[in-house]
């Protein structure tokens, strides 16, 4: 209904690539984080530009090709690496593609699609995450440059990135005006990584705090129209939430299948535990929730693919899919019992990784505020 046979063929190639070249290293990368070279490999195979046009090195696919990648990464348990790939292809580069000039696209989009540049997106600050209107990173014009001052936190790929798309304001006043998005390259004087952060999950990705101190950024690095950054970043967030929903529900499906298989093979009191009604019904609830949310995620992705701007549905899909992913992972831990709590079984990692998605890209609470607004509440 949503996927053509070309999508399914792509899915098989992605799956085989992940099985062969990524999954064998995942446990190690949980300890060490993944090497930058895996991004070049993703790039070589076209997986970082599935839906960008061929003139920028992209594959010319539709939104569902990005959904296929996101699903397969979730189903293969990529965790932090999947997040970094999504940041690259579905968060940091889309504004450059949509609002950037030809020169900017050649300079930053093309190498990101090839996997030669790793990109980050810097919105959140120590004192402003959900409250995007409350950010205080300031970019003041100075001739042909902007001087950027501020601090960004929880930035995926922040330490390893070649450039970050940074959300700034012209002054510290609250409100939606004076927002500007800049590509700021690593190595620009005044741009430093102050620390990398230890997290509950997503261990294979690096998460950093960035500091901008009188960081002089050429006006040529301004992405989109001056002062229109708020609108641009709101657009970006829709894509970010959409892909988060697609990845979350695919991850839930993987965890569900694992738990179901476990329950059918684990015996207690003389029979497979899947035959106990309490376990059986729990599995049924997990599968049913996933099926319903999956259908809604696809329906919303189709709207997004067709160029609609369905803010309510995207927020609902993100809210529900990420909640269900956490619930399913929690159920799976319960079904596995002590094994579920152990690192040698995959469900505790699934829970730790899934938990982030109810916070990142807009918390549950912010999703509800947005949805409420669309109802006129």
């Amino acid at each position, binding site marked *: 209904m949503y996927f053509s046979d*070309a999508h399914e*063929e*792509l899915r098989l*190639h*992605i799956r*085989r*690539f992940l099985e062969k070249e990524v999954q064998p290293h995942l446990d190690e990368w949980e300890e060490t984080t993944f090497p930058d070279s895996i991004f070049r490999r993703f790039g070589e*195979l*076209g997986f970082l530009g*599935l839906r960008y046009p*061929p003139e920028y090195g992209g*594959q*010319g*696919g539709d939104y569902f*090709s990005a959904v296929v990648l996101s699903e397969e990464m979730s189903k293969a348990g990529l965790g932090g690496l999947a997040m970094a790939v999504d940041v690259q292809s579905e968060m940091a580069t889309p504004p450059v593609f949509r609002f950037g000039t030809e020169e900017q696209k050649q300079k930053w989009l093309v190498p990101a699609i090839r996997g030669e540049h790793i990109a980050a997106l810097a919105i959140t600050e120590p004192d402003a995450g959900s409250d995007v209107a409350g950010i205080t990173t300031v970019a003041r014009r100075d001739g042909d440059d902007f001087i950027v001052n501020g601090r960004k936190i929880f930035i995926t790929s922040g330490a390893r990135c070649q450039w970050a798309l940074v959300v700034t304001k012209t002054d510290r006043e609250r409100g939606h005006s004076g927002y500007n998005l800049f590509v700021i390259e690593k190595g620009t004087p005044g741009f430093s990584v102050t620390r990398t952060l230890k997290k509950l999950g997503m261990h294979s990705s690096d998460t950093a705090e960035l500091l901008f101190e009188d960081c002089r950024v050429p006006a040529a690095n301004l992405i989109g129209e001056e002062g229109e950054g708020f609108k641009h970043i709101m657009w970006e967030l829709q894509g970010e939430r959409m892909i988060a929903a697609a990845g979350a529900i695919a991850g839930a499906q993987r965890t569900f299948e694992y738990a179901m298989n476990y329950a059918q093979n684990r015996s207690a009191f003389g029979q497979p535990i899947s035959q106990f009604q309490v376990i059986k019904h729990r599995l049924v609830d997990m599968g049913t929730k996933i099926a319903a949310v999956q259908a809604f995620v696809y329906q919303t992705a189709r709207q997004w693919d067709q160029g609609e701007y369905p803010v309510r549905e995207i927020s609902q899909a993100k809210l529900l899919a990420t909640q269900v992913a956490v619930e399913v992972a929690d159920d799976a831990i319960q079904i596995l019992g002590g094994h579920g709590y152990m690192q040698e079984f995959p469900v505790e990692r699934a829970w730790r990784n899934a938990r982030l998605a109810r916070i990142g890209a807009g918390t549950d609470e912010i999703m509800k505020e947005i949805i409420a607004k669309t109802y006129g509440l």
Partner: protein
Amino acid sequence: MKIVVTVKQVPDPNSSHVLEADNTLGRDKEVVLDPGDECGIEEGLQLKEAHGGEVVLVSMGPERAKDAIRKGLSMGADRGILITDESLSGADAYLTARALAAAIKAEQADLVICGTESYDGSTGMVPPILAELLGLPQLTFAKKVEVDGSKVKVNRQTADGHMVLEATTPVLITVTAAIAEPRYASLKGIMAARSKEVKQLSLGDLGVESGERAETIESMADAEARKAGAVIEDDGTAVDQIVKFLADAKVL
């Protein structure tokens, strides 16, 4: 250089197989491009990338075998030919080779690449018969191929190393899985494959008579299940028992 690669659609190695009443494989199961052929296609593509030319995939099978050809086209092959005909159902190696030979002859290929044997039939007879029918020298069990003008040099896999063989084009080679790691198709390649030509030919188109089968499969039997080994409890004589066991097996 024009390169023909023979490809076959086979039951998915990851699914269980069902035999029909006439001992042929049931094909309503999940089917895939023969994994061995993917290696042949990869080698063909690498040779084309190095020397220019065209890679043509030739297959024989039911209409759905087009999917197997399509997969090779996604990897980058240029076009495909599918020989499909009711009367080819259950074809033996000789008829298969005659049909393939008729289609390949018309292509005037410089190089014909075949897998050593198909994953399902495993007769290993089609490539040699094909070489004979086409009047081509055959370089078999190649794990490496080098082309220099009209010279084709291969390393033939042997039990304890390899031998180097050389022939002049046109030539048929059979390749082992060690020849090349098949590439992942890109989405661009997959979409481009949708508009590549796959010509469908019947035996009539090729002027081939199906004739009597030279071979039929009389029966099939499963390999004998591995017997449980002997368990030796150590009552002080275990070492002697094990030594005797190894001596009886003539490994000592």
